[in-house]
């Protein structure tokens, strides 16, 4: 362990944050001119992290930078935010910064004619800073904080072109769904803090076995629910496809490589806690499998290139969840690492293609191979990595996942995983063939500029040569994984090839005749499993109705209670009026007391009631007031009689009291 803390690592997240702060306060045009600052800054961070990655050689689970920052003390217990950079964080730093630089460089050309591009880069640098800090953090609170800030950035980016309606709705949907997930995070944090009074991951994991089982379960479920929200797992996956409404490079960085992966990263770090509650692990597994399978199937039916990539990301994340589900953090993290690179490559490639063909619909594309050779080569490398073709990183990481599932001897999961593999290579081949071969449907297609090709090249190289074997990755992280055997390699290659042939047939239209009988399947798939419809009808619309109902309830009932008191008076007055008539007057007349005069006074009072002096809104007090006022008949004799009557009554009372 290097004796001195490598504080220079703090520079990595610091630089983008400074850029964000700088750009935030500038007026629009200055910000647009200074947008170059952001990619340069990201480049330097990438450089630093690569150097650190190479020089530190940690190997093993110790941390090279540990830093505590006291946020507050709550009843003697200090609440700290800790930075704890371990080998895993180092690799993630490298990944995020490299991809970040590529995306930002690419965006320079992609966004150059958008008049709010300065704002785009501000949000991008904030996002990258948040992701870097998340990766470096050693406690759940900091993770959660960065988690939500990334949510904010994704909201900003998806809703970048806020004038149109689609991005606005998509950004709101994305933020709300992820926020629903964060609800789980909140509960988990509360449970954890109540149980062990700290958020430091190492302390939590140390004290976790001592908790009551249901507390651990609640914590684990909460974290899982949050991860599902962030990584768009099945029930909460609706937001990712719509998120494509944002600028493509933005989606490349956020919705492919980093943010969605944060969920997996967090669960991987908290895996020992999950292992304490086996049933949570199984839930993760089956959610992963379901998401992977359905993601892949849905991808096949998509015609929009970005939607295909979106669903492919969902399914690949499903794969990572499967790896976590069987308990192997290494497999998940390795797949996350590789997936980030080739998915970013695919997205940027798709970006160039869309720019070139001005359409996102794959059916309108074709024959781009001749027009855009370099982009095609890079895109192909990415596609094949996704499909799991042999020498590329995608193959190794997917293979590792299959191996881990087999090692956990969970055969139904393995079969479904292979089915998923087949479908993945099916839609990859289908897309690949449609886009690059066949007749050219779109006129004057041209290659993207150097600013677009360079990042593509870098990412393609990373996907090609970055395919270090699982063992090297494992050694670096210091985690032991299941090493691939030849047996598994052959299985996965067969799966890929089977998928490719099916893809070829689909493109040739062989399956069209199946279209008719499987019509209902198509409909289900087109409507994206009716998930969106489900959410709209079961949650969104009723929510409008409920809120209107409650508001009316609030206006009418609760407020009504206050006005009701007055209304009660009105009803009461009618009651007492009759009560006056029958009971009170009777009693008074009955007694031969000196107040006999009251009959005269009450006659006047009745007179006043009958002649309608009392309007409906007079409250009881007003009624009582007018009653008294009417007693002021103006005739002195009445006063004197009432007074003397009063006197006599009092005298009688006193005498009676004296008697007792």
């Amino acid at each position, binding site marked *: 362990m290097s004796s001195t803390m490598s504080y220079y690592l703090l520079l990595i997240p610091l630089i983008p944050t400074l850029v964000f702060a700088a750009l935030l306060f500038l007026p629009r045009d200055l910000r647009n001119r200074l947008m170059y600052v952001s990619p340069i800054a990201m480049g330097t961070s990438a450089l630093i992290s690569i150097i650190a990655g190479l020089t530190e050689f940690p190997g093993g689970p110790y941390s090279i930078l540990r830093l505590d920052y006291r946020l507050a003390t709550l009843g003697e217990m200090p609440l700290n935010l800790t930075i704890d950079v371990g080998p895993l964080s180092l690799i993630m730093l490298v990944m995020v910064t490299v991809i970040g630089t590529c995306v930002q460089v690419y965006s320079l050309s992609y966004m150059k004619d958008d008049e709010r591009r300065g704002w785009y880069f501000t949000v991008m640098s904030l996002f990258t800073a948040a992701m870097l800090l998340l990766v470096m953090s050693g406690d759940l609170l900091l993770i959660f904080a960065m988690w939500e800030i990334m949510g904010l950035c994704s909201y900003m980016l998806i809703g970048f072109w806020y004038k149109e309606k689609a991005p606005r709705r998509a950004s709101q949907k994305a933020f709300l769904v992820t926020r629903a997930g964060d609800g789980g995070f909140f509960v988990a944090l509360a449970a954890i803090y109540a149980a062990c009074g700290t958020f430091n991951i190492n302390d939590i994991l140390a004290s976790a076995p001592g908790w009551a089982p249901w507390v651990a379960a609640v914590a684990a479920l909460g974290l899982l629910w949050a991860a599902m929200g962030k990584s768009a797992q099945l029930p909460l996956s609706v937001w990712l496809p719509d998120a494509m409404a944002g600028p493509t490079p933005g989606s490349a960085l956020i919705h492919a490589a980093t943010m969605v992966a944060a969920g997996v990263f967090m669960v991987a770090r908290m895996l020992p806690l999950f292992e304490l509650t086996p049933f949570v692990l199984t839930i993760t597994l089956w959610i992963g499998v379901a998401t992977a399978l359905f993601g892949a199937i849905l991808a096949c039916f998509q015609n929009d290139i970005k939607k295909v990539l979106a669903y492919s990301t969902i399914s690949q994340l499903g794969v990572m969840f499967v790896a976590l589900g069987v308990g192997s953090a290494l497999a998940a993290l390795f797949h996350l690492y590789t997936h980030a690179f080739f998915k970013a490559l695919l997205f940027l490639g798709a970006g160039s293609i869309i720019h070139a063909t001005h359409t996102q619909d794959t059916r309108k594309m074709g024959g781009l191979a001749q027009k855009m050779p370099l982009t095609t080569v890079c895109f192909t490398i990415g596609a094949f990595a996704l499909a799991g073709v042999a020498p590329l990183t995608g193959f190794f990481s997917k293979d590792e996942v299959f191996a881990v599932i087999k090692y956990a001897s969970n055969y139904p999961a393995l079969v479904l995983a292979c089915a998923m593999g087949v479908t993945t290579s099916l839609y990859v081949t289908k897309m690949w063939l449609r886009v690059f071969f066949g007749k050219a449907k779109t006129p004057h297609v041209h290659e993207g500029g150097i600013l677009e090709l360079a990042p593509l090249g870098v990412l393609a190289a990373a996907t090609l040569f970055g395919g270090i074997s699982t063992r090297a990755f494992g050694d670096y992280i210091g985690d032991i994984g299941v090493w691939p055997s030849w047996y598994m390699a052959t299985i996965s290659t067969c799966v890929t090839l089977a998928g490719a042939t099916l893809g070829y047939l689909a493109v040739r239209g062989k399956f069209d005749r199946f279209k008719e009988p499987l019509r209902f399947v198509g409909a289900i798939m087109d409507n994206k499993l009716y998930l969106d419809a489900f959410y709209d009808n079961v949650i969104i619309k009723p929510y409008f109705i409920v809120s209107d109902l409650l508001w009316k309830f609030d206006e009418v009932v609760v407020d009504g209670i206050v006005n009701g008191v007055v209304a009660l008076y009105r009803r009461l007055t009618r009651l007492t009026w009759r009560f006056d008539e029958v009971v009170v007057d009777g009693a008074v007349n009955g007694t031969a007391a*000196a107040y006999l005069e009251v009959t005269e006074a009450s006659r006047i009072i009745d007179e006043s009631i009958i002649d309608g002096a009392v309007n409906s809104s007079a409250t009881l007090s007003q009624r009582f007031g007018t009653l008294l006022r009417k007693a002021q008949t103006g005739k002195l004799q009445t006063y004197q*009689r009432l007074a*003397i009557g009063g*006197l006599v009554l009092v005298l009688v009372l006193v005498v009676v009291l004296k008697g007792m």
Partner: protein
Amino acid sequence: MLNLTVFLVLSTIVIFSAIKMLSVRNVLHATYWLLLTAITAAGIIWFLGAEFIAITQLLIYAGAVGILTIFALMVTVRTEGELIRSRDLSLAAAICASAFFGLMAYAITTSPSLMRVTEYDPPTFAEFGATLFALDGWVLPFELVALVLTVALIAAVWWTREVRKGGDES
């Protein structure tokens, strides 16, 4: 001297004249009955030995107040007919008054005798005058009554002033 017969005679006269005063329809006759009551009351007081008070009673009530009432009547009654007023018998008033009397009668009869001194040798009239004006005697109330009478005077003067139509000069 304090024998029953004298008391009975005087009290019957007083009560009779009081009732007559209230019941008679002609207001003028009522004032005459009032004068009679006042005179007999003065007699009773004399009978009780307070000669000075009896004389003042006679002077004030029978004299001044009686004459004043008649005078007021003369001013406010224009025709013969107006003198005749209704008896204004009001049941409520009767009930109040009788209840009051019943209560008083009950109280007087049942409460222990309040008589502290039986033999009666009243101090001389000179003593009466002396303590009336003694500093620690009744001089304070006397002065205050004087002030009250001044107020009454001012009031009488003020209310009967003739007011020119144009309101008062300041």
